[in-house]
C-alpha cells in the first residue's frame, strides 16, 4: 500500500517530464508489457516506479540547484539606521529627542538598568554577544555604531 502511495507521488513528480521526453515514454511503454503478469504487485510497482523515476531524473536535472543564504552586507549607514530603529522602539525613549549623539544618561534621562536593556536589544538585533566590560562603556548611539562596526569589520 505504501508502494502505491509512493508510486502516485512519483507519478505526479514525473508528469511534467512526460511532455518533455515523449520518445522516452514510448520506449519505456514498449518495455513495460514485457514484465510478466504473475510477478507480485510490489515488484511490478517497483519497476513502474523506477520507470517514472528514471524519466523525472532525466528531465529535472536542469531544476536542481544549490541555494545559499546570507545576510545583506553591513555598512555604517545600515548599522546606524538599525540602531536608531531599535532605540525608537524602546518605550522609555522619546523618539523626537533621539539623536545619534544623544547620551543615554545625560540627554535621554535613562539609568544603568535601561542601558543594559538597550545593549541586550542591540545584541538581539545584530546577533552577536557583547561582553559586560565593553557594554557598560557604550553610552551613545554613535558609540554603539562604532563598536559594532569595529566588531564586524565594517569600514568606509
Amino acid at each position, binding site marked *: 500500500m505504501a508502494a502505491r502511495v509512493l508510486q502516485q507521488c512519483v507519478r505526479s513528480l514525473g508528469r511534467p517530464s512526460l511532455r518533455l521526453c515523449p520518445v522516452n515514454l514510448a520506449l519505456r511503454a514498449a518495455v513495460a508489457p514485457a514484465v510478466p503478469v504473475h510477478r507480485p504487485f510490489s515488484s511490478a510497482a517497483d519497476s513502474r516506479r523506477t520507470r517514472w523515476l528514471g524519466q523525472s531524473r532525466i528531465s529535472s536535472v536542469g531544476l536542481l540547484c544549490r541555494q545559499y543564504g546570507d545576510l545583506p552586507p553591513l555598512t555604517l549607514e545600515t548599522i546606524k539606521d538599525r540602531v536608531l530603529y531599535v532605540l525608537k522602539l524602546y518605550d522609555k525613549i522619546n523618539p523626537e529627542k533621539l539623536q545619534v549623539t544623544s547620551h543615554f544618561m545625560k540627554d535621554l534621562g535613562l539609568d*544603568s*538598568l535601561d542601558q*543594559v536593556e538597550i545593549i541586550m536589544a542591540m545584541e*538581539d538585533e545584530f546577533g552577536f554577544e557583547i561582553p*559586560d566590560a565593553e557594554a*557598560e562603556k557604550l553610552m551613545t548611539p554613535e558609540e554603539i555604531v562604532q563598536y559594532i562596526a569595529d566588531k564586524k569589520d565594517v569600514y568606509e
Partner: protein
Amino acid sequence: MGSRLPPAALSLKQFLQRQKVLGVYRSMLRTIRQVPDEADRKYLRGWAREEFKRNKNATNQDAIRMMITQATNHLEELQKSLLLARS
C-alpha cells in the same frame, strides 16, 4: 589635600556592588531569552525590571548584598527549570 573626586562619586565597594547588580541583571535577561514562550518572556522581563527598579534607591550595603543574593537565587532557579524543561 582633599579628595579631587566629585561628591556624588561612589566608594570602591559601592562601585563594585553596582557592577555586580548590573551583572546579575544582565545574566537574568540573557537567561530569560532562552525561555521558549514569547508571552512568558515578556512577563519575566517585566517582572525582573520591576524588581530591580523598585530597589534602585537602596543605600544600605548589607540590604543591597541581600538583594543581590536573592536575585542570584532567582536566576539559578530559572536556569535549573530551563534545564529540566529542555531535557
